[in-house]
């Protein structure tokens, strides 16, 4: 069973952390992953940096630009991850834009993911239909879970379609926005969270975008299985470097 599915079966709200591979320094990737696991994080999204991350806000954009400047590439990332499974056991997901994967070759990419122990992919600009028609078979052949996004604008019908294709969890974008945009949740989010809960989907949902602290994590996970923190963690790395991950994670879990 894929590590993601196993993790989703645990009887707890999951904390997932996104960070950009190669940021702040090229070789921080694995250290950060290890530290995150040590500090109790349940799942990690490793950002494969892209020159034109159009679904991301300024924080993640800036970290991607820096990571690319540091020398991060697809090959370098896979090299760094080569031995990650010797030390890390929580689910690892690569989050990245489709073009670098396309250039690498989608099959080669999936194969390599499987080799190094990546469990899933989040590709914001690979639409569900294209995945379904062209890439599903490859992903499944290599046991890679593709994670789809839904947003407050996604219709119930489409959500059910996405649910039917999901093999792991659904990435529930908290509000219509790029990453790092909103701070805190209002009535609109609460309504949306409840609407989705009422759909009683097969796939568990993990909420992303706009989660930055214990409060928003708790709000987001009232109905959902877990939540993902991205920009807030990148900001922490920018201010505090990769050494003090504990000071970010521990107040999140034990306020």
């Amino acid at each position: 069973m894929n590590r993601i599915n196993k993790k989703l079966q645990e009887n707890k709200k999951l904390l997932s952390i996104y960070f950009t591979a190669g940021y702040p320094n090229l070789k921080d990737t694995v250290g950060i992953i290890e530290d995150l696991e040590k500090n109790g994080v349940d799942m990690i999204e490793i950002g494969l940096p892209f020159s034109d991350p159009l679904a991301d806000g300024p924080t993640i954009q800036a970290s991607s630009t820096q990571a690319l400047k540091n020398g991060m590439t697809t090959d370098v990332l896979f090299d760094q991850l080569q031995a990650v499974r010797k030390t890390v056991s929580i689910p690892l997901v690569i989050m990245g834009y489709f073009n670098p994967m396309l250039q690498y070759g989608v099959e080669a990419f999936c194969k390599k993911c499987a080799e190094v122990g990546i469990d899933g992919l989040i590709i914001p600009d690979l639409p569900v239909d294209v995945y379904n028609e062209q890439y599903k078979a490859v992903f499944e052949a290599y046991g890679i879970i593709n994670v789809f996004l839904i947003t407050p604008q996604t219709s119930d019908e489409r959500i059910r379609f996405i649910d039917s294709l999901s093999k792991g969890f659904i990435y529930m974008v908290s509000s219509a926005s790029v990453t790092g945009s909103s701070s805190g949740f209002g009535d609109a989010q609460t309504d949306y969270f409840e609407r989705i809960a009422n759909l009683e989907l097969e796939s568990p949902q993990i909420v992303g975008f706009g989660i930055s602290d214990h409060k928003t994590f708790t709000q987001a996970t009232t109905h959902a299985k877990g939540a993902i923190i991205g920009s807030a963690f990148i900001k922490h790395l920018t201010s505090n470097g990769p050494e003090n991950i504990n000071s970010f994670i521990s107040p999140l879990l034990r306020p």
Partner: protein
Amino acid sequence: MTYNINDKGYYGEFGGAYIPEMLYPNVEELRQNYLKVMAEPEFQEEFNALLKDYVGRPSPLYFAKRLSEKYNTKIYLKREDLNHTGAHKINNTIGQILMAKRLNKSRIIAETGAGQHGVATATVCALMGLECIVYMGEVDIARQAPNVARMKMLGAKVVPALSGSRTLKDATNEAIRDWINNPVDTHYIIGSVVGPHPYPDMVARFQAIVSEEIQWQLKEKEGTTKPDYVVACVGGGSNAAGVFYHFLEDTEVKLIAVEAAGKGVHSGESAATSILGKEGIIHGSKTLLMQTPDGQITEPYSISAGLDYPGVGPMHAHLCKSGRAEFIAITDDDAMTAGLDLCKMEGIIPAIETSHALAIFEHKKFQPDDIVVVSLSGRGDKDLDTYVKHFNL
């Protein structure tokens, strides 16, 4: 082989809609409606009335006598520079603003490179009383200052794009981010035949008026609807799409697309996508784009802000790959020289984008009885500083 779009939104293998789910409702709404709306008689009527009375269409097809003599061939200039706001871009923004109104959008966003699309968008927003936000790379804000002033006068908000090469590509990223953040009330008026399906097709259809006019105008002047060659510069490709449109399937009409070679195709400072590009995804579309082997999009370079883009629309990727159109890359210097030459020979100051297309005559020999239609896509008022500096005038 067909050179038009198929019902899945692809030109050959290029096109599609590689968009984040956040954009799905917007793009899908547009996809489901655009052909239906465009086919409505009232839409057609309103569109055509504005093109005639507001934009000033038909734009003349002008026989350039002195230029023709110099190059010993028959050169016709399709005068999109005479459109209101000074370029072909307004054909599309008129169409899209009417579309946006029918989709009940109250807020308009756009990206712009040369500023022509920004001005054209700000213009139609003023005309319709809609809010307008234009994203523009910081570098382009500096080199196309007159257009920035125009947008402000028209009441638009110009937001600088500060990432990447701070040019058109980055402005487009910012516009897409805005759209993601404002999915309900906002229509994104893309300025070229780029972006996710149905944009390339929708924009091409709005620009198709240009080749429609060329057909009957040429009939009046030469007794034939068919030029031997149609030449156009390509940034994203809307100008070329417009002049090529009605000739796409008629291979007797040769199509020439001119790209910006910048300081030379292999200088590292170029925007010649057809040569330097590979298949990939940019701004929601599978097409040719300049990128690293790793799939990072390369920062392009051209003296002309409107051609300073690392991709081309999927139609053009297909025209290039299939060989239907000949792609030629022209350097900054050659373009500037051709632009100044048009000033002195025909009394027309072209946009630097357009000057790239005009440089064709120094690079390719035509027969005396060839009819060569060149799209004079825009006027050079926005580029005066660049010309003056380049030539020390």
